[in-house]
């Protein structure tokens, strides 16, 4: 297990390094940021001074080496636009994104898995049809559109929730539902199919024949069906942290997505790099946890880890 963990850690560091390099290259390829930070009537001297202040007067390889050095020390650099530490900017915005992402995930996971199980257990019933319909809507409606509809209905018409901004729990409801709609749909579809597959297995039939209660049967079935669900849930959670840009914009939520969008429009290289790296790190950690969870959920994986062959 230790070797497995170490191997995964090594892979993770490699992924971060590659991502850092690619983002660095792409940022520079998009053009010179200085042009966006000088007045329109700036002189060549002003431009040169700004370049120097931002560290952009050095060659690209020199910038890259300095960037990696800082990165190794956990320093994401200085924002060109905000003129603050990128670490501080990300530290300010990330909790907001995590707050929203976790709530959206909880909504998506609880309702998604629940609907999926119900649909599977009542396959072909009206309940199943409703579940499939919800999944279809959740996967096909763009988040910005869903967000606007929710705002019109629940904020403007019924005045149940605020239309945007951050505050108490009520501020979280609409953006969390909007953000969680897609994971809900994905998880409900996958859960349904995974549970149906398990329900068709002989051991489930045997359990039923033994007269196991419905609730217990659900628990057993869900555990057997859990590997793909957990995998998808992990990916979805990572996606929620890094892909909340549109929802954060629609609901004026001051998270990492908004920070990234603004940084991109200003060619604020260091912020873009910082945000991408942090999101990558989150993704890597989540996938690592998903991998580790396989061992907890499936004894076959644990045996594989100890070198014991599993029956095919």
């Amino acid at each position, binding site marked *: 297990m230790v070797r497995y963990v170490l191997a995964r850690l090594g892979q993770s560091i490699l992924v971060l390094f590659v991502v850092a390099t690619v983002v660095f290259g792409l940022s520079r390829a*998009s*053009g*010179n940021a200085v*042009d*966006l*930070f*000088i*007045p*329109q*009537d*700036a*002189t*060549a*001297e*002003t*431009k040169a*001074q*700004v370049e120097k*202040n931002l560290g952009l007067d050095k060659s690209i390889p020199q910038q890259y080496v300095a960037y990696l050095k800082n990165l190794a020390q956990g320093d994401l650099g200085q924002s060109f*636009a*905000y*003129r603050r530490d990128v670490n501080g*900017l990300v530290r*300010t*915005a990330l909790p907001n994104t995590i707050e929203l992402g976790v709530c959206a995930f909880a909504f998506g996971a609880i309702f998604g898995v629940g609907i999926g199980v119900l649909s599977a257990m009542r396959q072909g019933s009206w309940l199943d049809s409703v579940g499939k319909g919800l999944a279809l809507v959740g996967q096909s409606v763009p988040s910005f559109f869903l967000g*606007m509809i929710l*705002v*019109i209905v629940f*904020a*403007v018409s019924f*005045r149940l929730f*605020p*239309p*945007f*901004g*951050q505050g108490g729990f009520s501020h979280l409801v609409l953006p969390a539902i909007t953000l969680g709609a897609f994971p809900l749909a994905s998880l409900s579809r996958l859960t349904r199919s995974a549970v149906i597959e398990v329900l068709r297995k002989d051991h489930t039939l045997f359990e039923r024949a033994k007269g196991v209660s419905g609730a217990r049967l659900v628990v057993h079935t869900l555990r057997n069906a859990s590997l793909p669900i957990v995998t998808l849930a992990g990916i979805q959670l990572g996606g929620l942290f890094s892909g909340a840009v549109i929802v954060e*914009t*629609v*609901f*004026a939520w*001051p998270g990492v997505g*908004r*920070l990234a969008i*603004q940084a*991109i*429009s*200003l*060619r604020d290289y260091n912020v873009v790099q910082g945000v991408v790296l942090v999101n990558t790190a989150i993704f890597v950690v989540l996938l690592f946890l998903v991998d580790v969870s396989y061992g907890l959920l499936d004894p076959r994986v644990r045996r594989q880890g100890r070198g014991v062959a599993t029956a095919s």
Partner: protein
Amino acid sequence: MDEFDAPTVYHHDESMPPIEPGTFGFAVSRRSLLAGGGALALSAFLAACGSSSKSTTPTTAGGATTAPPTSAANAIPAAGSSTTAGNATTTTAAGRVDAKTETIAIGVASLQEAYVDPQWATGGLIFPLMWAISDFLYMQNQEGKFVPTLATGYTLSDDKLKWTFKLRSGVKMHDGSTFSAKDVKTAVDRVVSGPNAKDFTHLNNFKTYVTGANVIDDLTVEVVTGKPFSTLVVDMAPPIATDYYTKVGDAAFKAKPVCSGAWKFVSQELNANVKYERHEDYWDPTRKPNFKKLVYAIVPDESARVAGIKTGTLDIAYGLTGSTADGLKSEANVKIVEIKETGLAYCMMYDNVYPDQPSPLKDVNVRKALLMAIDRDAIGKALYKGFAVTPSSATPKITPGYNPATKAVPFDPEGAKKLLAAAGQADLTLTLNTYTTTTIPDMVKLTEAIVSYWSQVGVKATINNVEAATYLPSFRNKQLKGAAMIAGPTFFYLEPSRLSATSFFWSKAPYTPIVGDTKLDALVDQINVETDFDKRTALGRQQADYLDEQLYGLPIITTSSLVAVGPNVTAFGFIKSNPYAGPTSWIIAK
């Protein structure tokens, strides 16, 4: 207080009298004008003042004399009316009565980098923050003219290198200290010679001229320049509280500035909001807010801002498109304010930037034909729902030198065809570059409309839509071909030379050469050194006429800024052609 019982679109009252010198305002400093959207222009007026100068006590910059003390806000009209009322009765020299509404929340799409420190502010979108916290020596009235504010007047030495300002007494800074000459000196020194002066690259122009400031006495300060600096008065840094600045240092001041404006900074949540509380000891009762708290909420999505207004989460929402404003007509509690002529969309005949390369766009008749082919009135009505007008000139109305006698080039497709045929360009093909900008709503749709009109006279244009962060540097760095759309924020063109320098007409613009017309260059050279306002205006007129004759930039459409105002606001006044939120001097809460 008027109740909103029917939707009303109303307009800025252009006949509104200017406000008492020194009793209202806003401050524009170089930094803000420069960076974000093009260098601000404010200067001409003051420059003119300075020139004629030898002692100009209470007059407006630019030669305009202010009317007797009259502070005005635009009262929101009763239902059914279509124009704004002139003077709000709630604003009197004796001060305003506190409103029941304690907090006014203003929704804006962005505050850019959101520096709350007024000396760090860059770009037009930062105006709201700067105007909230700072008073300046001279500030704009609602007519756009600069009037004495923290200064009561100034004199300029014969060699035009020493500006001596007389300062207003009885002004309290946010920390309770009394405003004095040292606060002006501290602000100047911070930029010019302070330990972090090198970071103020956005103020390089100011630093090029100004060498320092000397305290003559508590209420007299002398600002010294190394060479004549005609725009110094409007480019002056806002005074900052010296004791506080000295005590906390530069970095802490940057995070929590202390100045003398109507609002004290409370907190900033990045990309979310900036909060202020009223400066209770504010010196000017006619501009002291009648509500206690001000919040600028950053709400990037237009539909969310509209929802905010409808639900009362916001009291004022900036940055609406014409179609949205049109749609809000059915809202009983929402009024739409139209701030006219805040943006001018140009179609630049970009190929003129390459002096050695042939291009059909170098033929003035071709340029004229391309303008004649576009039905600009129809675009204004259809695309902008009437919240836009056809400009008669490439020079905005608020720019000194604008020629009111100039007639708009008429829509004449047959005439355009003839001109193109005569020029041998009956089957002209070109690229029209474009981008998305907040200054001109729906810029890409506007571009599509232009191309469509051109196709009807045989011109085949291909649209090259480029993301703004790439487009603007490309535009500046001569990396485009054909024609190119560009948004002109008219608020920046309060001085004729700025129009040339920042609109890419003047080949000597330090970093943005484009046209290379020697006659135009010579004209702008003259404008830049002319310190007499009237003479400068006359030169501006020549420039305006010449630009309209040459049509290097086709003036396509002049757009309005649209603001939604909720029921907690009973009067809403603004500076002419100002698309930015604030100053709040003319906002009266219910």
